[in-house]
């Protein structure tokens, strides 16, 4: 208390009640009237009325003090309320930030998926242009069969050709032999 300078006291008092038309004045007036009442030399009725008046002023002072205390309590509670709201909002901000970064990751994932799908589509388009594997296999099988049949026929024809060749060979060789025999004995009386 000793460290507080007069200036501080004056400043504080001016701040609280600078106009002099309020509680401060009331307390000063009460003190003055109290001292006056203590030193009063008037009649007991006057003293009594003064006493009543002082009680009234005292009640007024108490009343205004009560009011100020209530206002002070209210302010404290408002402060707490605001603190709570402040922390709530901060939490909301951080969770929103988290959600945003999650969403960004989602978007990256979705873009990658989309890219993969598009690559797949592009390749699928190219593959579609080529003929179906089953069809090609069937065609190959049919061609194989045809080939086998034809080679079979070719074998048959070749066999027949061989046989005819041999038969003709036999025939021609017999004819030749006969010719030779006829030529070798021309003057033998063969023809009857």
């Amino acid at each position, binding site marked *: 208390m000793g460290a507080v300078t007069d200036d501080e006291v004056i400043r504080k008092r001016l701040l609280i009640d600078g106009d002099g038309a309020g509680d401060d004045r009331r307390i000063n007036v009460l003190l003055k009237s109290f001292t006056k009442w203590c030193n009063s030399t008037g009649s007991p009725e006057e003293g009594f009325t003064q006493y009543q008046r002082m009680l009234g002023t005292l009640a007024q002072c108490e009343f205004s003090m009560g009011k100020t205390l209530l206002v002070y309590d209210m302010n404290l509670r408002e402060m707490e309320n605001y603190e709570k709201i402040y922390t709530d909002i901060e939490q909301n901000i951080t969770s929103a930030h988290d959600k945003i970064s999650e969403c960004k990751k989602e978007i*990256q994932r979705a*873009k*990658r998926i*989309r*890219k993969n799908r*598009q*690559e797949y*589509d*592009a*390749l699928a*388009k*190219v593959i579609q242009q080529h003929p179906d594997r089953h069809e090609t296999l069937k065609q190959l099988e049919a061609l194989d069969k045809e080939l086998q049949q034809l080679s079979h026929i070719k074998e048959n024809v070749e066999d027949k050709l061989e046989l005819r060749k041999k038969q003709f060979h036999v025939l021609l060789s017999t004819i030749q032999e006969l010719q030779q025999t006829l030529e070798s004995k021309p003057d033998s009386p063969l023809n009857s």
Partner: protein
Amino acid sequence: LQRKLRSIWSISLLILLSRYKDRHLHMSVFSQSFSPCGRFLAAGNNYGEIAVFSLSSALSPDATDLSQTPILTFTAHEGPVFSLFSTDSHLLSAGNGEISAWSWAELIKRNTKAAWTRRPNYKSSLEIPEINAMTVNPTENSLVIGGGDNNIHIMDLESGIFKSVLQGHTDYIHCLSVREREGEILSGGEDGAVRIWDHRTGQSVHCIEVYKYEECARPQYGKWISCLTTESDWMLCGGGPSLSLWHLRSMSPTSIFPLSGCQRQANFYQDMILSVGEGQCVSHCLLGGEVKAQIPCTPHSLNTLALNLNSTDNRVLTVGGSSHQIDVFTNLSYRTFSLSF
């Protein structure tokens, strides 16, 4: 040959024009590259200059007009800078048939001294072939260079020695791509062929002549391939023929994109394909072949598209072309602002 002559003539004309104050009118941005930290963008133009922009200041909330201009502009080569590539520490630039490396840390400090400059062994000494494309093969730590001499040169990044030359193209090479997992290098050229090379043997494993496929071919534009990009089993290529998506395992085209004009660069991004070329827009396409959106931009014709995937804060798409302005997209759906060379 006609194209080479025309390019020589245009180079000399542009060098003259670069001295005049309306050089901005004739400027074209040919290449872009983001720094490894993702905070800077380097762009190369037809005057042989490289400009470094600070993306972090251009994207910050208190950006001014000044932050949309380069923090550093310098002449890197005598000819146009057709290709830029960033490694973990250096910016590689190709121009006038040579490759220079600039340390990113030095560039940020505005020091424009090249770390090294090398030139592949060209057979003919008469004409210096331009280098159109450069990319790095990370498994071998080698730089793959495609140039005007129809060959692909491979240089070891550590030693600087030119290890091998891949021959096979019959006309100059426009674009390159590397498939790390399979160890393949793909190249697309003026002769209309996309060749797939095995990086170990140096042999051409496959040769796809895109213009021979009826669904892709656009004879009215020609057969040259100017853009090539790969991702796992898929490849995008385009140029004279329409931009098409190929499945590399089956070597078949799966989707054709109905984009008018020749595409000069295409990229896979998430579930979409972004493509730029002739035409004042960035095309967004789906893998199935449909064009989802075409976003308008400043340059009338676009040459380069770059995505800043190195950084989380500055994830932007930038495009450059026949204008001194480079459009920046923070949201793929619209142009946010433009950087000025």
